[in-house]
């Protein structure tokens, strides 16, 4: 099972969501719930820390595709932070790297929203 977990914390006007484990067809709904909950609490500036994600499949990437429009409509965005090379490659393969913003650390990610 590898132990999947998601934790959220406020980070300078944005929310930092730290994901650990696999983001696959088994776990993606938890990720989706987390983001929908943030939206329902009017948080639309979301940084997803992917450094602890060993693996992502299309179901995992789909969560971000489904969410970015709503985030942007509400003056926010989804910034993907520190994907591992394997995870980044999946975004590349899907053609998503041209669409999502990536950041190397939390500071840069949070600053993205004030720029």
């Amino acid at each position: 099972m590898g132990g999947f977990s998601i934790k959220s914390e406020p980070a300078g006007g944005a929310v930092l969501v730290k994901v650990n484990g696999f983001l696959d067809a088994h776990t993606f709904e938890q990720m989706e719930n987390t983001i929908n909950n943030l939206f329902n609490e009017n948080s639309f500036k979301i940084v997803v820390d992917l450094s602890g994600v060993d693996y992502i499949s299309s179901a995992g990437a789909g969560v971000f595709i489904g969410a970015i429009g709503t985030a942007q409509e509400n003056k926010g965005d989804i910034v993907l932070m520190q994907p591992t090379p394997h995870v980044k490659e999946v975004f590349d393969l899907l053609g998503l790297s041209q669409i999502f913003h990536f950041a190397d650390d939390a500071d840069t990610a949070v600053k993205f929203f004030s720029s």
Partner: protein
Amino acid sequence: MACAAKAEMEDEGGAKLEIESKTENLSRVREFMSKQVSASQLPPAERGKVILAVDEAVANIMKHSYEEVASGTITISVKSDAERLEIHVMDSGKKFDPNSIRDIDIIQHVKEGRKTGLGIFLMRQIMDEVEYSFKEGQRNELRLVKYVKPKPRPGPAVQAGGGAKGA
């Protein structure tokens, strides 16, 4: 042969994994595939992608072919030689030919917030051959092939020829 619980086997024909149709078994599929690609001649940079393609194929069967009813069996068999890695994924759920699905336009997908329809696209991006056949006795068989030496490809999605082979 017929075994309800998951089972991993090895014989002259290659390695085989049999699992129940439950998404929690996907990590098991990836572990199995990880062993297979490591033992193959595939360049290391391609291995993770092949694991992903098989995960997508199996996840699709769980979601669509067995429609999330955890009562079906999925069998994955792998053969490899100096030239290719060949994977067969078999299920006895709903009949389905992935070649009926057109490639997506990712920009439009994101614009509409559509989070599904990515798996087959990804499978085609990664594998050199994606071929489907429906076998007597209600069985879907998906054949995924990756060449050890990349061949020139006309576009991202190639459906190569060649007859489907039995497991």
